């Protein structure tokens, strides 16, 4: 089932082309039902869970697509897991393609007197969305964006396929929004969303790394120097072999973790998957540009889209170093 999903996504996104715009890819993914991938069957979904979603993240990464699928999926997950009364209508709105925003980096939000204050960082799609999913140990909520006390600051990045914003909440009212969890339930749900986010970034990074690597090997096979294809030069071959091994390792860790998601170590597993995948993607991108030579630093070639995404992905989630420190703490027991 997941394989079929993956193949279908691959075909659709190959048709859409590398770096396809949000205008093109968002309607596509809504129409093809990708928002329903993880949703339980009794709620109208196809119940493929996070592994299913990761198949899509992987393909979106492969084609550096611009659609804000991750925030939408985080919101779907949050709503589905919550015990709110009007859950079904929220699911209907979200799965119907209403834009929703969510932070891809730190989110520190607190409730004060029924209103929200705090900040959400690297929020994707904050300009087009009705609501922002906020999640912290204290609260998980769908916060209305078009209301007083909400400040949305565009943060342009080199990776033009992602529209990111900083959102500051200063006593923003929840009217029209909904609290999904508070207290212990918030901590548990927030943790679950963090795991989802880390695996999503990992899957996307692995997909992109694979695509960029394949593109590079193809280029080396085509391009000739001194009467031979570059792919025949052993120094380049060995570098490609090392990259292939590294990508395989990141991919195996991701897949292996997704097979074992229900253990108590899901958080650490997500940390490891994201850290290794993002670091590997960065290495692949750095080498891929070098192996392509001059053409890769021109906008005519797709390399730069992958390179810029690789730069960004390192810093999403908890950011560099923080992941490694968390993983170490899991080994050291403190």
């Amino acid at each position, binding site marked *: 089932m997941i394989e079929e999903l993956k193949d279908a996504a691959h075909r659709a996104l190959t048709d859409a082309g590398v770096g396809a715009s949000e205008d093109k890819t968002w309607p596509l993914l809504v129409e093809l039902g990708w928002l329903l991938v993880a949703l339980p069957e009794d709620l109208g979904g196809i119940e493929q869970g996070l592994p299913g979603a990761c198949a899509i993240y992987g393909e979106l990464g492969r084609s550096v697509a611009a659609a804000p699928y991750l925030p939408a999926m985080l919101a779907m997950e949050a709503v589905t897991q919550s015990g709110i009364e009007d859950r079904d209508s929220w699911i209907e709105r979200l799965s119907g393609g209403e834009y929703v925003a969510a932070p891809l980096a730190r989110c520190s939000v607190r409730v004060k007197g029924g209103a929200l204050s705090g900040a959400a960082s690297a929020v994707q799609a904050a300009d087009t969305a009705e609501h922002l999913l906020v999640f912290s140990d204290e609260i998980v909520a769908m916060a209305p964006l078009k209301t007083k006390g909400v400040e949305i600051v565009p943060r342009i990045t080199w990776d033009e396929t992602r529209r990111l914003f900083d959102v500051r909440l200063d006593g923003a009212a929840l009217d029209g929004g909904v609290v999904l969890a508070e207290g212990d339930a918030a901590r548990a749900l927030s943790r679950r969303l963090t795991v989802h986010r880390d695996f999503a970034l990992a899957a996307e990074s692995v997909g992109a790394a694979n695509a960029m690597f394949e593109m590079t090997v193809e280029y080396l096979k085509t391009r000739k120097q001194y009467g031979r294809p570059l792919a*025949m030069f052993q120094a380049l071959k060995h570098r490609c072999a090392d990259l292939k*091994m590294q990508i395989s390792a990141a991919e*195996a860790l991701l897949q292996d*973790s997704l097979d074992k998601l229900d*253990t108590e170590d899901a958080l650490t597993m997500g940390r490891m998957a994201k850290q290794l995948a993002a670091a590997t993607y960065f290495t692949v991108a750095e080498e891929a540009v070098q192996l392509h030579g001059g053409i890769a630093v021109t906008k005519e070639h797709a390399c730069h889209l992958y390179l810029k995404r690789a730069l960004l992905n390192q810093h999403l989630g908890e950011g560099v170093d923080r992941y*490694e420190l968390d993983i170490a703490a899991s*080994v*050291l027991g403190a």
Partner: protein
Amino acid sequence: MQTNGSADSEALSALRGEVRAWLKENMPTGWREAMTGVEQEAFVALQRDWFGKLVGAGYATPHWPAGWPGGGRSLAEQKVIYEEVARADAPRLIMYFVALYHAACTLIECGSQEQKDKYLPGILKGEVWCQGFSEPNAGSDLASLRTRAELKGDRYVINGQKIWSTMAQYADRCLLLARSGPSDPPQGGLVYLLADMRAKGVTVRPIHQITGDDEFCEVFFDDVEVPVEDRIGEDGAGWAVAQTTLASERGLTLVELSLRMRYALPRFRDVMQAQGRLDDPILRRDLGALTAKVHAACAVADRYLLKRIAGDEQVGDASIVKLCYSRTLRDFVSLGQRMAGLEGQYDVAFMRGATQETGHWALDFMNSYNWTIAGGSDEVQRNILSERMLGMPREPKAWRL
């Protein structure tokens, strides 16, 4: 972190529990300490003892056909046994590995009924075998093998030299690859023989390793006679038979070794604590990055075996597993020796049968070369990967000097 077991079927879970309980009861404790700084004989005694116990329990030969002790196990079951052995940090059966895997599988797959009847029972009784493939100056280039096997009547007469033969000083028999004809094609002209290590003309010289150990040997053959009936396969088919030998461990070893590395991660806690640097963010950052790689190496080995079980293996997959393990191991031991500081340099533990994660970091660092050089060096794996898996063109064969 618990990552084994959750995907087990009920039968596998039961086996896992059974093996775990048996190991708890039977595994020699404190064997590492007992093997430190001792003569080879002590290590041999440990190996014999442990071999006997495993054979008795049926855990030494799960890969043999049904009918043999513990035989007829699926690859998935064999994997469970290997995982539990790694988890328990039991000794590796270094001295018997060639007999149990290389010799036995070659006999089972390519040997005649007479050969099976003659040799398999002896293996179970503890006969030691060694491998005679590598030669000085040959490396992974089979075409340049120079040990001669000359057919005279009903026997081959062997002259030449082999190297890197594990524990050959204790071996009863040798899996010998020798040249009986011209190397055209490069794999051609080889014959695969079962040589008697007690025969006249065989000399074994242990190699003094830089760690103080001497588990590898040179073996010299000087007019050594091997009867024709101890040839496996046809004359000239030696290369193909050798492939069977090399494929016999089927990825299990690297599942075991990467798990050993993962189970040894807490050793970093020990060394950081000993250095008074348990809270040092520098070391923690490095440890975090390494930990993800170690888990990934386990996942790579694990998924490779699952692919084999499912019959999905593709060319180059095995090279990824080997290269991933060897590079991760190098990262592992490098960080350890770095953390251990000056004190680590004073830790001149010399341990027989040491694996690569004893926590004696300088020793482990040196032993790690056993995996980046031997069994197909990293460089050979990179060639295989790039050419056979990625389809990057080989240099034409006509390019010779």
